[in-house]
């Protein structure tokens, strides 16, 4: 851990602070775009699992199983190299956004499926009997009830997505991790390992820690409420 208290190393990090700011902004941009993509995919694919059509349910299963059971690193490599060797050029950040969005979209789909599946069947039937359309039923009746079940695990997924922006390194990315690594191994800037990694880790921790804490607080609140609700229902049943 030498270098952690060396003034010159810290000065070097300070002089190159633009590198870290640029990496941080790139990581944030990639994450936000990928979060939007994954939420959209998650809702669409998640609702497919609930549909009556067998084709849509099969699409859901194949997508979720295939994406969840192969590493993200492999997916991003396939996307990047397949495009590169067939002559197309997609920006590194765009490649990252697509593969992160698709990968976490599969997890989001499972989260949405579990959330919607937790709503009792009577709610669906009630909405149908009142003449709601499919969109209306989902938007007004089902999703508002399942949102509190969906929220904690989807925030956990968002934290994982932000951490997973590190995969951009393998395609020569410009995210925070890659730029930090280039900084500490660079010919002119190399050597300031401890301060540079400390700054990089602190930046990640600053975004991820509040989010994951929020998720776990929501989760424990939900469990408490759930326990009370179930106890009440039991009482009603006994009466």
């Amino acid at each position, binding site marked *: 851990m030498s270098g952690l208290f060396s003034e010159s190393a810290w000065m070097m990090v300070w002089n190159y602070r633009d590198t870290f700011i640029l990496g941080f902004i790139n990581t944030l941009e990639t994450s936000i775009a990928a979060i939007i993509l994954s939420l959209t995919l998650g809702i669409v694919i998640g609702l497919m699992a609930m549909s009556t059509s067998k084709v849509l349910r099969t699409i859901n299963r194949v997508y979720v199983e295939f994406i969840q059971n192969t590493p993200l690193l492999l997916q991003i490599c396939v996307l990047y190299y397949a495009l590169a060797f067939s002559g197309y050029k997609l920006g590194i950040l765009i490649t990252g956004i697509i593969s992160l969005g698709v990968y976490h979209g599969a997890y989001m789909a499972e989260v949405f499926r579990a959330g919607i599946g937790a709503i009792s069947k009577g709610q669906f039937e009630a909405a149908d009997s009142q003449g709601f359309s499919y969109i209306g039923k989902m938007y007004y009746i089902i999703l508002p009830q399942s949102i509190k079940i969906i929220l904690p695990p989807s925030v956990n997924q968002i934290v994982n997505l932000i951490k*997973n922006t590190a995969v951009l390194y393998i395609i020569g990315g410009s995210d925070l991790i890659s730029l930090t690594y280039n900084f500490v191994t660079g010919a002119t800037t190399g050597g300031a390992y401890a301060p540079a990694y400390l700054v990089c880790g602190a930046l990640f921790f600053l975004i991820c820690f509040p989010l994951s804490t929020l998720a776990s607080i929501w989760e424990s609140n939900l469990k408490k409420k759930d326990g009370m609700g179930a106890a009440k229902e039991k009482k009603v049943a006994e009466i």
Partner: protein
Amino acid sequence: MNEFMGSLNMLKNPAILLFILKGVAFTLIISVLAVVVSIVWGSILALVRNYCTAPGQRIFKWLATIYIEVFRNTPLLFWIFIGLVFFPAPQLFAHQLFGLSSVETKILFKATVALTVFTSAIIAEIIRGGLNSIPQGQFEAGFSQGFSTVQVMLYIILPQAYRNVVPTLLSQVITTIKDSSFLANVATIELMARVKKILSNASIYNGTGTINVSDVFVLFGCAALIYFIINYTLSCVVRHVQKKTQNAAQSYAAPAAGDTQPVTGGNG
């Protein structure tokens, strides 16, 4: 079509096949080692974070909390890079081993340690979830029977906690197998890195003299298939175990209040 046949022919080359199979072996060994060590270390962390609440021991609780939160909220690749610089590797590992050079063996050790310390924080949280689901009455019953604190933990609390989290732990094995592909960033040891290396030399082996798109699909497709077979088998086991524990809980008694089913594969 010619290009495609060339790419397929690469997979028929016994040297390349052996190279890939060695990668599969390394991936499995690294992941299993990381998970086994993490379960032990994670259990200790979880117990300390949950139960070291006496005034004199509170410092240990804080230390465990800091450890868990720091490793949970930073990327794995970050710890692998740090491990390469700061983790000491014993001289024992500075040898050629299983066809790896001495430098690669050292990297293998350091990266596995990084994967283990990272995974242990996640597993600690999983086990803590299991510990929290055990009703207070179990402790009181244990103490009333004259068990000491250690005995209560060993014989009453931990067995129940582990049984509750078996499906989640198994899906963490899947995540760790996928996470081990991050080692591809630092050395050619496991499956992902080996496939990538073959791709960069594909022009020598596929007979066309250049690297084609079909090489990308054949090589990465092969790796994806291997990962998929391993992980899908595991996820089928997870589902089977989940069903069994659910059925057991239902036949044993009416479902307990607040017994929410965990969403599997929570960690991407």
